[in-house]
């Protein structure tokens, strides 16, 4: 009881509350602007808070993290430009909805789904976090290999009309993922003697080019030179009927569980969570054909999944001292600067602080409803009224600034530009882009894990199947591939 009053007394003070609200708003904007990303924002802002109350700093982290994960959905829905890597799956159904004139509805669903995913994740962090964290230790290199393969199997769901093109796109992504210094042998691959390529192709740089430039070029092609559209967008709140809300509950439940599961595994991220959630929603649907054509469940699954990753990704960091992603590492860094030693004793060292941060992850998830739903969405929905002649240069400048700031080098701008041209050509050829991204993210994870597993087993490949946990994930992967085939076969017979 004393602990609870200590935690809430710490969180419900002026500084932490102000930090959470302003950071949530800022987070939504950062997520919504392609190129700017939460890692950058937190890395820039966190040092400014070192001299402040720790809960102010952590409230800011929570707000930016949760806010930006929702913010990424806004341009994904309105412009088909994912604001963050995790919002790619949101474009699949969000943009078709916007084209149908249902932008407000899609944004509302995204907002609710983000809040629900984030809340479920925060509750998991507060309740079963330590148990879950212990379970992640069973994941060795062999298991990580299968997790990556499981993710890759979801490429099946992105296969467009032409399966061969999708597989070629995935292979292209795998190839891009091999660029850079090989972590296991120390050998540079496909770097052509360029030092900046040693770190591999920066995911955000490729993504901004691949996903943001083609829609911008498409906008430019429309040659929309007229002024501000007089026909104001209908911004009054769209009623989502209870029946529809009820139909989303299974999707929210499933996506929350997937997001939490992916989140606790160090190294996997919100983008994988969103893809897997989307895949699960599609393959369990009675009408899988409607996905990709503006099915609200697709938006709900992707947005719920990527926000459910957030608080869960803090679980290994706060309970074991093992940061699973850069944001978790920054949080641990901030705690260390305030004199705490990350590890299993963290909660006992300062329960007020660690518990307070958990509560902040919960509160900022709920704040998405207020700042995302009411304020930010209305501002950003105005984007649809802007004519192309204004929109195109604005987005281009934002993209360039965002990409340049990541590493402070000009060559990244050229990489982004090249990726954009490639994306534009590939779209014209009806080659889906999502398998490229999935290959780029999961390829290195699969390759490094399998090689590590083989190093540990001294080259014996049977260990990839005989470890109990790896066998389970391997079977699940096979099931994921075979299940849609079985269903299609059954339907044809019926």
């Amino acid at each position, binding site marked *: 009881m004393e602990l609870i009053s200590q935690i809430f007394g710490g969180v419900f003070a002026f500084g932490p509350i102000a930090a959470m609200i302003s950071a949530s708003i800022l987070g939504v904007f950062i997520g919504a602007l392609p190129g700017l990303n939460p890692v950058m924002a937190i890395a820039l802002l966190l040092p400014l808070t070192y001299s402040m109350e720790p809960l102010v700093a952590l409230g800011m982290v929570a707000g930016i993290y949760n806010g930006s994960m929702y913010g990424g959905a806004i341009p994904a829905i309105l412009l088909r430009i994912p604001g963050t890597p995790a919002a790619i799956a949101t474009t699949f159904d969000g943009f078709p909805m916007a084209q149908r004139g249902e932008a407000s509805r899609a944004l509302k669903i995204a907002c609710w789904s983000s809040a629900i995913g984030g809340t479920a994740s925060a509750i998991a962090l507060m309740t079963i976090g330590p148990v879950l964290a212990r379970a992640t230790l069973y994941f060795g290199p062999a298991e990580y290999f299968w997790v990556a393969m499981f993710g890759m199997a979801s490429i099946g769901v992105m296969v467009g009309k032409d399966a061969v093109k999708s597989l070629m796109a995935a292979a292209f992504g795998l190839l891009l993922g091999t660029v850079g210094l090989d972590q296991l042998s120390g050998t540079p691959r496909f770097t052509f003697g360029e030092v900046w390529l040693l770190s591999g192709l920066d995911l955000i740089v490729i993504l901004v080019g691949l996903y943001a430039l083609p829609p911008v070029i498409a906008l430019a092609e429309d040659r929309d030179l007229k002024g501000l559209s007089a026909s104001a967008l209908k911004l009054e709140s769209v009623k989502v009927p209870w029946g529809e809300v009820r139909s989303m509950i299974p999707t929210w439940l499933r996506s929350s569980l997937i997001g939490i599961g992916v989140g606790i595994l160090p190294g996997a991220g919100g983008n994988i969570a969103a893809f897997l959630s989307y895949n699960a929603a599609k393959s369990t649907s009675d009408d899988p054909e409607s996905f990709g054509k503006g099915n609200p469940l697709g938006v709900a699954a992707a947005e719920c999944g990527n926000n459910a990753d957030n608080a869960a990704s803090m679980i290994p960091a706060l309970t074991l001292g093992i940061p699973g992603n850069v944001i978790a590492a920054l949080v641990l860094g901030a705690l*260390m600067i305030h004199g705490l030693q990350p590890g299993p004793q963290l909660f006992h060292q300062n329960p007020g602080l660690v518990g307070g941060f958990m509560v902040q992850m919960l509160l900022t998830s709920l704040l998405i409803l207020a700042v995302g739903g009411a304020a930010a969405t209305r501002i950003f929905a105005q984007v649809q009224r802007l004519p192309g002649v204004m929109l195109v240069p604005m987005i281009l400048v934002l993209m360039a600034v965002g990409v340049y700031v990541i590493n402070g080098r000009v060559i990244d701008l050229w990489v982004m530009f090249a990726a954009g041209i490639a994306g534009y050509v590939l779209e014209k050829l009806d080659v889906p882009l999502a398998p490229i991204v999935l290959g780029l993210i999961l390829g290195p994870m699969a390759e490094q894990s399998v090689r590590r597993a083989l190093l540990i087993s001294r080259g014996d490949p049977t260990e990839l199947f005989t470890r109990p946990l790896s066998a389970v994930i391997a079977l699940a992967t096979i099931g994921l591939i075979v299940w849609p085939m079985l269903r299609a076969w059954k339907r044809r017979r019926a």
Partner: protein
Amino acid sequence: MKYLALALAAVAVGTPVLAEYPERAIEVTIPAPAGGGTDTSARKLGTLLEEELGTSIAVLNVAGGGGSVGVTQFMMQKPNGYSLLATWNSPITTVPQVQQTAYQPDSFTPIASTSETAYTLCVKPDFPAETGEEFLAELAANPGKYTYGNDGIGGTMQLAAERIFQSEGIEAVAIPFGGAGETLQNFLGGHVDIYGGSISPVLPYTESGEAKCLIVTSAAAVPALPQAAGLESLGMGDKETLLWRMVLAPAGTDQAIVDRLAEALEKTVNDPSYVEFLATKGEVPNVVVGDALAERLQNEYDALAIVAENLGLNQ
């Protein structure tokens, strides 16, 4: 004529710049991702340095290539005192052994080292050894049996361990991971036998009894790890390899600026709040400046070159 006067005025204004250094923001390149050990150390130091120098400090994280990407990018900076590099030793003394780099340890103006810590080797409680000596004997008796996680192939951690192993004729299987956090995860899960990495991540687990650390790579023992033997006590004091951090400037930086920075660093590193912060990470301050720092870099570079060559890793 008017222009000449203007130019002269500019020179007149420009001359005392050195005396007023710094008069604008300083950019610090960190060749590591945000949130890591080098990053937090440098950022914390940066906030203290901002007060000391009376200017703001902007941080740029350029990760990749074991640090070589950021260091190479830094080499293009002007030697005007407004671009500094905050790095740990590996990118300067280890990476050039295993990669083709455009730089050598003497490609920079050394300013000051800031802090240091040892690496450690730890095992599970049921490992058949209780002391550093028994640990090495067990490894030597079972060539190729044990796996040890490390921070990456050809990284300083691996070379620090191999430096010890080579002198004892030990053969252990190196499993490279992305960093100490990943190594710790795989060690706790039982996927590798030996944790190899910095002290701070594993420290809580020695206190809880889930890990016993038997060796540190410093000559002296480390108070936080009472069971671990220092290399001196094992008769290998000359095989010491530390993880240490420093601030460097581009080659050709003005001596007055170097002195001003070294003086400011010496003061801030020994600031009680920074020393306390270092202690939570198992690090201690150690400021070495000027020629002594250049010598320290060169000596370490030469010693590790031999280890890398024996491993067949050298370029």
